[in-house]
């Protein structure tokens, strides 16, 4: 653990933490209940946080429920990871103007904003670390991402409750936040155990005049986090990756899952690590100027697989295979880590509940050929009816 400072903040004093951040010029962002889930939004007071709410997640299904508790961080997460704060869904890159001779292109770097995010989970931090590796790589450092990243202050929350869709333990990313945070909180009944994970976090903690953390509370917090880890039943066995997935390129299971996959892009949108993007122009009618804009894209779109004169991934099967193989296998070759952090968002937010922790073992085990062939035949007969 990199932190060297702990403290206890009574939950009734959480507002003090928010106030100190405000005074330091941060816009505070936290989970807020909206439309049956939580989304990141600007938090002005503790009462904006989803106190007493809990989320239940399963493949293709998300529900919030209200409890009698005063839990502040009872909702584990919504569809949004930290991705949007650094890799913006819509990022203007250049303002291009026609001149008498040629044109000018002016970079439109985002205004640097100090944003403090409260409520990030260990899986979110792992996702952010992977995105950092992609966007802040020395040779190809992305100034837009870097500008947003610089202003970020991350307050993590250690998980003490696992969702049925969580598998961070098997991906070794959670449920405890190990690194990549400025502050980390563990909610234990009426108290918040705080630890600092960065210089900025230490500095802030020293200004909060907290009571010293007790051994008893630390042990209780650790016990609850461990219990959360133990309660996770879902797992992804990645021990044979990447090679094993490369070897099943022609497995019939790909056809089976393609029969269910909608190619709707939701899994890639909610994935904390997916970084595909496209760029588009927005010219004015007189063709004097245009904004060159970067947008979130997905390997499930038609154009993603389009190269000159040909679409190399026309079918849903091609696209799902591309996504899963990259996420779980070739990502390791490319970045030295899996592209999956075990947050389970792609399972929950897939409209038809496709579950990669079910697909991977099916793809890696040879014994399912007959049942797959049967399901395929069923699928085909349905199509013929149309």
């Amino acid at each position: 653990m990199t932190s060297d400072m702990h403290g206890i903040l009574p939950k009734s004093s959480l507002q003090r933490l928010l106030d100190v951040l405000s005074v330091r010029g941060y816009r505070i962002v936290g989970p807020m209940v909206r439309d049956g889930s939580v989304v990141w939004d600007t938090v002005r007071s503790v009462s904006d946080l989803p106190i007493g709410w809990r989320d239940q997640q399963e493949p293709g299904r998300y529900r919030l429920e209200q409890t009698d508790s005063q839990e502040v961080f009872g909702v584990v997460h919504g569809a949004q990871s930290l991705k949007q704060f650094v890799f913006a869904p819509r990022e203007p890159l250049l303002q291009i103007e026609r001149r008498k001779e040629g044109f000018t292109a002016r970079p439109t770097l985002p205004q640097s904003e100090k944003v403090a995010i409260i409520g990030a989970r260990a899986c979110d931090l792992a996702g952010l670390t992977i995105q950092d590796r992609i966007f802040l790589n020395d040779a190809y450092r992305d100034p837009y991402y870097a500008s947003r990243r610089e202003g970020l202050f991350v307050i993590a929350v250690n998980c003490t409750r696992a969702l049925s869709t969580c598998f961070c333990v098997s991906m070794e990313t959670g449920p405890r936040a190990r690194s990549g945070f400025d502050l980390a909180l563990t909610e234990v009944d009426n108290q918040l155990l705080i630890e600092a994970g960065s210089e900025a976090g230490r500095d802030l903690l020293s200004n909060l005049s907290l009571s010293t953390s007790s051994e008893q509370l630390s042990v209780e917090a650790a016990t609850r986090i461990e219990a959360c880890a133990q309660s996770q039943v879902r797992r992804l066995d990645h021990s044979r990756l990447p090679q094993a997935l490369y070897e099943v390129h022609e497995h019939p299971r790909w056809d089976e899952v393609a029969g269910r996959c909608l190619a709707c892009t939701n899994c890639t949108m909610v994935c904390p690590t997916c970084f595909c993007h496209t760029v588009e122009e927005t010219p004015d009618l007189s063709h004097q100027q245009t904004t060159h804009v970067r947008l979130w894209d997905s390997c499930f779109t038609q154009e993603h697989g389009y190269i000159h004169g040909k679409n190399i991934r026309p079918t849903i099967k091609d696209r799902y295979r591309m996504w899963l193989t990259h996420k779980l296998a070739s990502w390791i070759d490319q970045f030295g880590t899996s592209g999956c952090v075990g947050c389970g968002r792609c399972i929950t937010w897939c409209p038809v509940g496709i579950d990669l922790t079910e697909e991977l073992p099916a793809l890696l085990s040879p014994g399912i050929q007959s049942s797959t062939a049967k399901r395929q035949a069923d699928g085909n007969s349905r199509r013929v009816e149309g």
Partner: protein
Amino acid sequence: MSKLEAPRKRPRLAVFKFASCDGCQLSILNLEDDLLALGQALDIVYFPEASSAMNPGPYDIALVEGSITTDEDAHRILTVRQQAKVLITIGACATTGGIQALRNWADIEAFKQAVYPRPDYIQSLSTSTPISEHVHVDFELWGCPIEKGQLLRVITDLVGGVQPRVPADSVCLECKRQGHVCVLVAKGLPCLGPVTRTGCGAICPAMGRDCYGCFGPSEGARKGPGLPPNTTSLARHFHDELQLIPVEVLRRFRGINGAVEPFRNESRVWENKR
């Protein structure tokens, strides 16, 4: 499509109406400030919805709203085509037959008898068909109504000599970019977003409503084994998990774009299950 390159003068624009509600034409008028820019970039010579000055062709760009539902219109669209260098359909009616294509599954004579005191006055075809079934269409704009920004973009591209394109991805892509909560996953609503073409700006999910497919199938009306849109999987999910009965599944797909092939085929599957 490059026929408009380097025009000597402002391209001449005409707007024609067939069987439709005029909503797409109103989207043009709703361009507001951009309408002035449009009027400067183009010479709007025929647009009865907006002006009584109706000048004869030929036209550089013809925007066609509405579907073909009468013999007369089936002939008129031929003359429009002859006068237009570039013909663009605007909206669901012109592009797929529209909501009035529901008649394709019904008995038009029975409708006439039920609605009109003198049904013999009504001269109407038994089907509503898209413009592309009658003449060559250079570009199709989807939506009920069209999204005015898309229209402006296509005209901008044409005026600039650029091949126009509008995205054909699913509504979900834009919905997630905008940060809306998925109404299908979080509320169990039978949202057609996953199989519907983007372009609207995900306005229904943004309001907590399920998409009803007014922009037509994602990736257009392309068809083939294993290609999107996977209506089969979504329909099965509506039925098996969201507990829609077959006729409700049928109605999801047989709506504003019910006549376009991927949606038409899916509704037929569920008709057979009734």
